[in-house]
């Protein structure tokens, strides 16, 4: 029973990282229709930014978070302005182009920083564990769970309550009429893309104490993040949260019951099964048109 609960907790903390990666994707893919294969590289850049800030300036992860967010958001902005914005009506070309960007970023990091694994120390303030019966929960992982929920709340507020979010939702639903009412759609898209990239960067920084930092670390995460967006239902924040929890937990549980590889196959099968019966995801957004 304790082993089960420990695994469930580990799954939950993985889910919270996944959630932050998937939120950015949910905005970029779900809202703007861009399949951004470079999203995993934004995670990777976030991780390297955290490493760089720690080794060169001695900044802890928590202090570095806002800086990492801005750094990766800037990279996202450049990718959008330089590549993606020319391809909004050409989804297949976007896949290829962003894949190219992904390879480019990976190789750039390999050439400049090197391909060996890097390690980042977790924040000392969050050292230690919370022990409840037989369940050992590291404080850092508990922090991750709450932080990711805070990020969801902030994103919800940004999308539903701020003027920027209203403009983004308007542009998503009808770009032409939005422009007819003074909304500069290209600017809105660029900022949304940058925000999604920034979230991925933060997720990358936060995952550094748990995994080693390598140039290809994002690839694995981005696949799961896409799964989350698809399972959750495009355009639904609640769906993204629920799906991140499910994918994270399912991965943890299947891995415990079988092994990592078989567990992974089981998760994919489960998702295929789910999509067969709920093709629009768990929480599709329905409206009369």
């Amino acid at each position, binding site marked *: 029973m304790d082993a089960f609960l420990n695994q469930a907790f580990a799954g939950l903390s993985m889910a919270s990282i996944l959630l932050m990666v998937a939120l950015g994707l949910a905005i970029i893919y779900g809202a703007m229709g861009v399949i951004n294969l470079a999203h995993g590289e934004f995670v990777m850049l976030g991780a390297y930014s955290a490493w760089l800030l720690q080794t060169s300036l001695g900044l802890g992860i928590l202090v570095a978070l806002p800086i990492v967010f801005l750094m990766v958001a800037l990279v996202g902005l450049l990718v959008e302005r330089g590549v993606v914005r020319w391809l909004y009506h050409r989804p297949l070309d976007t896949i290829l182009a962003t894949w190219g960007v992904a390879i480019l970023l990976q190789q750039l990091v390999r050439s400049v920083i090197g391909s060996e694994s890097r390690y980042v120390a977790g924040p000392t303030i969050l050292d230690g564990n919370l022990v409840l019966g037989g369940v050992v929960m590291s404080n850092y992982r508990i922090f991750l769970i709450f932080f990711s929920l805070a990020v969801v709340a902030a994103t919800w507020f940004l999308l539903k309550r701020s*003027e920027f979010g*209203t*403009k983004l*939702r*308007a542009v998503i*639903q*009808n770009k*032409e*009429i*939005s*422009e*007819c*009412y*003074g*909304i*500069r*759609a290209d600017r809105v898209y660029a900022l949304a893309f940058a925000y999604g990239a920034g979230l991925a960067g933060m997720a990358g920084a936060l995952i550094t104490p748990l995994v080693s930092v390598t140039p290809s670390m994002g690839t694995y995460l981005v696949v799961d993040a896409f799964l989350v967006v698809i399972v959750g239902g495009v355009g639904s924040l609640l769906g993204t949260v629920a799906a991140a929890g499910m994918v994270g937990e399912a991965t943890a549980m299947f891995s415990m019951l079988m092994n990592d590889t078989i567990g992974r196959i089981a998760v994919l099968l489960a998702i295929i099964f789910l999509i067969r019966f709920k093709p629009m995801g768990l929480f599709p*957004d329905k*409206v*009369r*048109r």
Partner: protein
Amino acid sequence: MLEARDLYSFYGKSPVLQGVNFKAGKGELFSILGRNGVGKTTLLKSIMGLTDGIKGTLRLKEESIGDLPTPERARRRIGYIPQGRAIIPRFTVKENILMGAFGREDGRREMPEGVLELFPILKEFMNRRGGDLSGGQQQQLAIARALALGPEVLLLDEPTEGIQPNIVQQIEEVIVHLNKKMGITILLVEQNIPFARRVSDKFIVLDKGRVAVAGSAEDLTDDVAHEFLAF
């Protein structure tokens, strides 16, 4: 107020408008008439910069606007109410109206004055989704949204098309009110000739992308209607 000289407008490489001239004065109700497919909607879209490109001059208050991107034209207080109304389906009625104010230069994001008196039904439905309203209600909403912009010019594309008859008259009264009482210059694309004749100061009839007839309301005779407008 708003004028076009030798205006060509393109979809891809095909010119849909071919040398259109018109001039709508301040406070005028200016009708654009003609059969289906002669370029009426394209003319309004060209004013908003929604076609693939134009040649010729397009001027608002003596300023050339032909090269401006669409949002900049909106900021010069042109309110556009397209065919099909283009309500944002997932926005509430309130969000739909306030969206119109994004084009305001003064940064005010308020419910436009008098709109809820003009359209009491919108007050009732303030928190419903725009996509759940009927066609007539959506048309009222589209006009309300345009008013939130504080427009000097309104472009109305067949505002009574596909709307239940009891609301048609109400919308026609509102159009007259906006023009005569509030002094907003209106460009009206219309199929309903008696209505256009009754309320227009001036009109043009388009035929195959060109102006076939232009004049003031009394020039819109039955002969003109028969030649260019009957089906």
